[in-house]
């Protein structure tokens, strides 16, 4: 099984509170997801490379945002992408989700060549993302934001929508249940009917995570999910990310600046600097890598974490 990669139960204790990877929340039922994993056959997922990014280059005019970057997501793991500002982390996420088209190189996901598909097709093959600057549908309620993300799972046509009886009504209820489970999972019950535009920043981040989950992704891209959050919100978000990983058994690519969180929850870390991949390895390797220390972490961080 994928999770058995971890030698010790990973502990997240950066913020004074200790969470282990099996929290009480993870006992919550997610039958629809669990079922699909059992059907899909997890046996060979460890060997299988789910996402393969091959030598992609992306430039805007004279600026090279990404230069021959390659990256693999091996089975089910949390891969963190770190690097200084402007290193190309978000460009990488944008290239995978179809926002940008890299000029050279290719991206494969579960046998599909991602960089030839339009963004909505990429969503349909199971890549969901959150955005660094929240990009929600501000006029819709939390629930409708989630329901909108289930768009291509909901199966009825325009005429059935106009009648809203029988099949379309049944479909709405069926998918409403799934969205409600996500709302429970992310503890958003009180936000259910609130217009997203009226929610504070931290809660919007959570709704955005919920929207990505509602897509039933097979790969989750999180672009700075903890940016601008206070300690408590970061705690919650870290717990949710771990829970999602545990419950849904999906690989996660995480872009984050909070090194404490990254080192604690990532299985593997890729470091970018000025569009070039400078390192790739386990958190312990990265902490000791002199190039990474020079480009990003700095002497202080390594000294502090060694102490």
């Amino acid at each position, binding site marked *: 099984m994928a999770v058995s990669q971890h030698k010790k139960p990973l502990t997240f204790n950066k913020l004074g509170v200790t969470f282990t990877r099996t929290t009480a929340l993870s006992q919550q039922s997610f039958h629809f997801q669990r079922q699909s994993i059992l059907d899909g056959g997890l046996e060979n997922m460890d060997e299988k490379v789910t996402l393969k990014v091959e030598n992609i280059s992306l430039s805007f005019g004279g600026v090279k945002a990404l230069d021959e970057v390659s990256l693999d997501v091996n089975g089910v793991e949390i891969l963190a992408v770190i690097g200084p500002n402007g290193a190309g982390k978000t460009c990488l996420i944008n290239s995978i989700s179809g926002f940008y088209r890299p000029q050279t190189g290719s991206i494969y996901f579960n046998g599909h060549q991602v960089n030839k598909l339009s963004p909505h097709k990429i969503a349909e093959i199971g890549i969901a993302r959150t955005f660094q600057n929240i990009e929600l549908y501000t006029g819709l309620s939390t629930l409708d934001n989630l329901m909108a993300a289930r768009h291509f799972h909901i199966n009825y046509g325009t005429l059935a929508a106009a009648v809203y009886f029988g099949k379309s*009504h049944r479909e709405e209820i069926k998918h409403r249940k799934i969205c409600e489970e996500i709302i429970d999972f992310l503890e958003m019950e009180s936000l259910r009917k609130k217009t997203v535009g009226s929610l504070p920043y931290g809660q919007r981040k959570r709704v955005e995570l919920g929207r990505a989950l509602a897509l039933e992704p097979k790969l989750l891209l999180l672009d700075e999910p903890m940016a601008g959050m206070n300690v408590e919100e970061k705690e919650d978000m870290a717990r949710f990310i771990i829970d999602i990983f545990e419950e849904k058994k999906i690989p996660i690519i995480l872009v984050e600046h909070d090194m404490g969180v990254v080192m604690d929850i990532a299985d593997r870390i890729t470091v970018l600097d000025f569009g070039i991949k400078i390192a790739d390895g386990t958190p312990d390797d990265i902490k000791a890598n002199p190039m990474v220390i020079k480009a990003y972490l700095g002497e202080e961080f390594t000294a502090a974490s060694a102490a």
Partner: protein
Amino acid sequence: MQLPSGTINDSYEKDMAIIRTRWQWVMFIGFVVLIFVFPAFPFVSNYLLRIINNIVIAMILVLGLNILMGYAGQVSLGQGAFMAVGAYTVALLGHKLGVPFWLSLPAAGLSAGIVGVIFGAPSLRVKGVYLALATIAAQFIILWIVRHVHAFGGVSGVPNPPAAIGTFTINSQLSNYYLIIVVAIIMTFAAKNIARSKIGRAFVAIRDNDLAAEVMGISLFRYKLLAFFIGCFFAGIAGGLWANLIGHVQDEQFPLINSIWYTGMIMVGGQGYTLGAIIGTFLLLGVQEIVVLYGPSLSHIPGVGGSGYAGFSQFLMALIIVLFIIFEPRGLAHRWQIFKSSYRLHPFSY
């Protein structure tokens, strides 16, 4: 949304339903009955019926425009022309081919929808003001074609044979009233349902954040064009009803200024509220009719010329729109929502 006290959601069906309490059912059914017995009231004249017929036809068009503009966020200033497409479809099919109205009315919706998709194609590349300009093109191109191409009747227009059920022809204001009301109820029902379905959510997603919508699996190409199709379908149906009501279709009946007022009706009523489309149409066109009725007395005001009432309805409608944009940009329907929820919460603040 606050529910009336004592109303409890114990299933998703109940939470999703629009009509929740027994009182709401009573009022809804009462309202529908009232609509149907309305012409029997003694004060209802043929003149009043004519006004109401005109307003309800415009309401059907505005319901469609609300889906296009209020939900999907795509501005269209060509709705009058798409109404013309519907009207000409019904008139030409009836006059030249003898197609019965029951077939030509849906055909009017379809043809207007297809023409709408063609003129809506620029929405795939441009937004806002630029899209508004691109849709004005529809107004000029379509009206030029029907005016100058002989196959479409030319300057003198096309006479429309009245719709008939068996031997009963729908050519009076009263019989048209029932025809229009029945179609309007169906279209209102459809508009409300589309708005709360996955289609409506996809439209709002495109309106609020089109880039995120695409990444979340909503095809912008498909749904922007679908929004134009649905919006123009409603306009085509309105045009078809208009053709039957007026009996003779001409290009002058669908000027650009109408298309602009339609967008004004949505602003006054509230973008993205089905109720708003209805209120906005009745308010603005009601004001217009009142001015037509009482406008001549304006000439008694010293300093106003004898022809002061000419254009005065436009003056008032424009003033109302401007005041709404300044003081209640989200429209009357939004105000009504606020009133409803605070009424239900009273005396608590939340």
